[in-house]
């Protein structure tokens, strides 16, 4: 799926995630890019919320990382791709981390499973000690 995302059209943006305000920047930029890709209405808020979740995870669990935003087109259908990646400690048990309510940070444990529900496509890969990459997409209805 990452490769597919790489084929994205013009319009790619990288937002470094290093401090709290970067989370806000990332979701604002994500909203803007979604508008450019023709998405609208509540989808914009759903995307912004999903970006906020994965960006927050970067800060909390990995310290720093980046969000890459891309416009997509597949079979004449447009959409946006969000890649969140870091080189932090990684996740040992991904199925566990994807469970509602599971958290090692004493928070709600809804970020990853919630982001998956908010978006159309969701993929997470991780290697312990090497970091996490979350790739997610949302398509125009």
């Amino acid at each position, binding site marked *: 799926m990452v490769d597919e995302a790489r084929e994205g059209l013009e319009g790619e943006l990288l937002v470094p995630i290093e401090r709290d305000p970067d989370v*806000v920047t990332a979701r604002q930029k994500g909203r803007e890019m979604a508008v450019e890709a023709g998405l609208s209405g509540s989808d914009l808020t759903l995307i912004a*919320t999903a970006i*906020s979740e994965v960006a927050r995870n970067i800060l909390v669990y990995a310290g720093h990382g980046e969000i890459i935003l891309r416009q997509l087109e597949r079979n004449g259908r447009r959409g946006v791709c969000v890649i969140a990646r870091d080189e932090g400690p990684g996740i040992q048990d991904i199925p566990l981390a994807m469970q509602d309510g599971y958290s090692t940070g004493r928070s*709600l444990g809804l970020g990853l499973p919630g982001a998956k*529900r*908010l978006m159309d496509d969701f993929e997470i890969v991780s290697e312990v000690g090497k970091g996490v990459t979350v790739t997610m997409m949302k398509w125009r209805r």
Partner: protein
Amino acid sequence: MADDYARAERHLRDVAEYDVERRRRYVDLQPIDIAQIGELREAILNHLDAHVEAFFGYLAQYPEASGLFSRRNLLEDARRLKREHLIAMVGGEYGRPYVEQRVALGALYSKVRLDIRLFLGAFQALSRSIVNQIMALSPGDGPKGFQRSESLMKIVFFDIGIIMDVLIADREQTITLQQEAIRELSTPTLQVRDRLLIMPIIGVLDTHRARQLTEGLLNAIRANRAKVVVMDVTGVATVDSKVANHLLQTIAAAGLMGAEVIVTGLSAEVAQSLVTLGVDLTKLNAVGDLQGGLEEAERLLGYEVVKTRVQVARRPLD
């Protein structure tokens, strides 16, 4: 002076070695330029005072620059640093120490709030004074004078780049502080009547602001012995699970202090996102709009809103 150095220090972090190298590349400083400047060294050192005077004489004409002239010790520092600047300018070494000297001078300009436009004017007067002297050194050989001036101008622009960065960085720092202040002001808690508070939240709700908000709200509840709080989130575009959790905890804490929180203006999009995330909103007392929220608040407080022919009057139920 202590805070001067603190400032300079902060800016210095931005001028790493690679940055100095990049700055030299940007102005296209070549070994030939350094050689040309070397030929000028003695002559310019002989006229140091006149060049320093060109800079400060220019500034002295403008009352806007009084921040510098009204502080004798700062003015003396500035003159000394400017002299050192000119010596270094023809010294042939444009590495980190050179940049550090420029940063220190820039920090001083920033401290006296020297207007950027005035600084540029003064710097232009200074370079004109130097260029005039360079041209006079090779009478009858205009091209030679011109080439030497061109080499020196590269250093002039190298310098301007550094001073600009210092002045801009300071301005950005000021803006950041102001934004902080605005943020605090923008989550006011208003007492609309006895025991009833309104807290309008406009704009971005991030974790930092959410923390401020909690503190502000709990203090206001205590100070006003509030029973009901209407928290209006109209215009809040995004709420993620962390901020939502924070708000829910704040509401629970308010409850422990004896105040009920009514949330108004939650947009359909935000509500949908929170439900999709799986955030439990069942404990949230949400009412559509602010007006509805106020009516609910008055009901909770035991008042009744009665419409009369002339006006909306409020009287206690019992």
